[in-house]
């Protein structure tokens, strides 16, 4: 673990990304303390400029932008995290089965995966949310449904390669069950690429969620960054801060997660980096 941190910290930008990410997470945790009020409540005049009573100003209805960002952080991170977890679960199960069993199971599962990959993912997500009616659950499901194919293909590739390794055959030889071989023998050996892909998927998930909320397909009961950008876009020229601050929050968070993902990749594959 110590060794791992040493390799991770050699990548400066990854450490910077991690710091930003920690800040965002802290903001999400502290949101109810910093801004105990409902972020939807009207606290002042509409479109008050930043630093004139409110840190980041107010929006067109007089809601506190800073409170929105703090509460939105929690929503963005949670949706990103859960959507990724669900996508990983589906992707790993399908990819592992395809790679381990091969033959017609592989053929069938991979054709299914390709079917999902042929549909443009953002349009597909919009469609799913529209059908299911917008709510946090439906957004999580929609994002997971459009992002699992990547994981499935990755896991299948790793399994195909590891399946033929002699240590796996040795396990078959002692009569170990397939489930045990898949979960305890092969999966631990391909965790590092899965973790790296997963960290990058969180960033994509946050972007998709913002996009959906921007289009008005977010959960109407929770404050989110995409919703704030969408609500403020009509007054972009007269009150830039309403759009800009949530936009910057999305940018920084996604960038930070990407940097951390890169750093994880370097730390897991130190040889690639030293070349």
């Amino acid at each position: 673990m110590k060794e791992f941190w040493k390799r991770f910290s050699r990548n400066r930008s990854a450490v910077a990304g991690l710091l930003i990410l920690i800040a965002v997470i802290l903001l999400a945790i502290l949101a109810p303390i910093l801004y105990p009020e409902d972020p939807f409540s009207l606290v002042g005049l509409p479109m008050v400029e930043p630093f004139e009573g409110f840190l980041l100003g107010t929006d067109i209805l007089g809601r506190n932008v800073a409170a929105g960002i703090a509460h939105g952080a929690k929503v963005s991170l949670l949706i990103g995290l859960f959507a990724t977890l669900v996508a990983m679960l589906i992707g790993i199960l399908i990819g592992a089965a395809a790679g381990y069993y091969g033959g017609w199971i592989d053929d069938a599962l991979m054709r299914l995966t390709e079917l999902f990959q042929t549909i443009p993912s953002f349009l597909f997500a919009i469609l799913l949310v529209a059908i299911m009616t917008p709510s946090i659950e439906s957004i999580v499901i929609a994002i997971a449904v459009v992002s699992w194919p990547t994981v499935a293909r990755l896991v299948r590739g790793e399994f195909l390669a590891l399946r033929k390794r002699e240590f796996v055959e040795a396990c078959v030889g002692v009569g170990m069950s397939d489930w045990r071989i898949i979960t305890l023998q092969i999966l631990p050996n391909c965790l590092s690429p899965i973790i790296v892909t997963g960290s990058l998927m969180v960033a994509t998930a946050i972007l998709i969620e913002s996009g959906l909320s921007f289009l008005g397909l977010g959960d109407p009961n929770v404050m989110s960054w995409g919703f704030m950008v969408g609500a403020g876009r009509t007054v972009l020229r007269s009150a830039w801060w309403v759009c800009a601050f949530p936009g910057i929050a999305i940018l920084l968070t996604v960038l930070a997660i990407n940097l951390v993902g890169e750093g994880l990749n370097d730390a897991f594959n130190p040889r690639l980096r030293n070349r």
Partner: protein
Amino acid sequence: MGSPILEIRDLQVSLPAGSDRTHAVEGVSLRLEPNEILCLVGESGSGKSLTARAIVGLMPSPHVRISGGHIRFGDEDLRSVSAARMRQIRGSEISMIFQEPMTALNPLMTIGNQIDEVIQVHTKLSRKQRVERIVELLRDVQLPDPAAIFGAYPHQLSGGQRQRAMIAMALLLEPKIVIADEPTTALDVTTQAQILSLLKTLQAKHHTGILFITHDFGVVAEIADRIAVMRMGELVEVGEAAQILNAPQHPYTQSLIAAVPSLVPRKPRPAGDAPVLLEVQGLNKAYHSGGLFARKGRNVRAVKDVALKLRRGETLGVVGESGSGKSTMARLITRLTEADGGQIRLDGTDILAVPRKRMRPYRKRVQMVFQDPYASLNPRYKVGRLIAEGMIIHGVERRAAYERVHELLELVGLDARVAERYPHEFSGGQRQRIGVARALALDPEILVADEPVSALDVSVQAQVLQLLADIRDRLNLSMLFITHDLRVAAQVCDSIAVMRRGEIVEFGPTEQVFADPRHDYTRELLDSVPGKGWNAPRLAG
């Protein structure tokens, strides 16, 4: 002896900081005379390849560099010549042949064009002259139909043909020196024998000096005029071939030569009317290639109507070249691969008729030792768990399983404490011992060993073979021993089955197969064993 064409004096090659030693090559001095084959012999990590690469300035990475000494070639010092001059020397005056001809050739260029490129770089011949020269050269290296080979791509040739093409390329400009780095290691024995004799003929014809790097004393005995032995980056002994092979002076050379298995089969053990434990009949397996939309797939019959008998306590060797189906057969018997047809009777029960789900009780009776000691142990788990896992699955209580692990580790000559360590902390030989311990954990009756020593250095190989023999005798195990190495087979096996193209062409007691082979192919195999005319002196130690 005249003046040497190449003289290495006090060569030092340093390794980057943090390696397990500071120098890969330390103070090596060598002379290569014109018109001789000098064999540089050593185990893995001895620095033999790096010494050769240092000559032509091909270091594997910028961190590995020559830190001292001189390399005199004619009246130049190769360490100080310009990069342009070095390029000129490479290929035209000193050329190289590598171990793996598939990776050394560009897969997207025809053989002819690749050779042509070398001539174009170094000479000013016209296209027509060049083509003539190449075709003549391809004929020289005894390739059939040189004109067709000229236009062929590397993947269309067999391994032996590719190596011949490489040799043609190396000899193209009549270099003074050829450096051959394990040129026959990746080839089958019969091909290896042909390539070695070809190299020898061409060397005599062109009076080339060859620096031949190998780990195999059989090959050395076949080809060397002089021998230099390396260990841990240092030169331990240099001398005439006959002297080193028959009367080595240095204890290390003595131990290396003593570890080479003899071709004379060992004394047969009291043979048996022991009961037949495993009987294979009419075993078949074919591989199909081609997918959903392929018109017609190719059909390769890997194992054809194989029949075998293995008695209790007997060791049966299965020998053959690559692609002969010997490994597939091992996998069919352990049921890692499903057979297409036939019977495998274990104590009278046909295990092929047992459904996969109910195989477990049979699995524990037949256990496998794998070839690659690096790939056969899961890097994520400690040794103790790797060995105990099978027992726990078969219902042994956890504590009892781990106690048994300690016994097993001692049985294979390892300290019981290694159970707490991870596989990557061990050397190849130690890992193979762990693999044996794992196979023994379920108290099998039959051990299937698929090339268990071919990835190991010769001295380690001897130890692992000794271990397998000890354990077999102590536990009265039957063993199915798959190998391509007839020397190993002669020392380990009671009887031998020779396989070719999926079929068993000869089957009999080891002594008889070696002394009086019935099938032409067996005779060819025996004739191809490198160094067959040389009997390693049995030295003390």
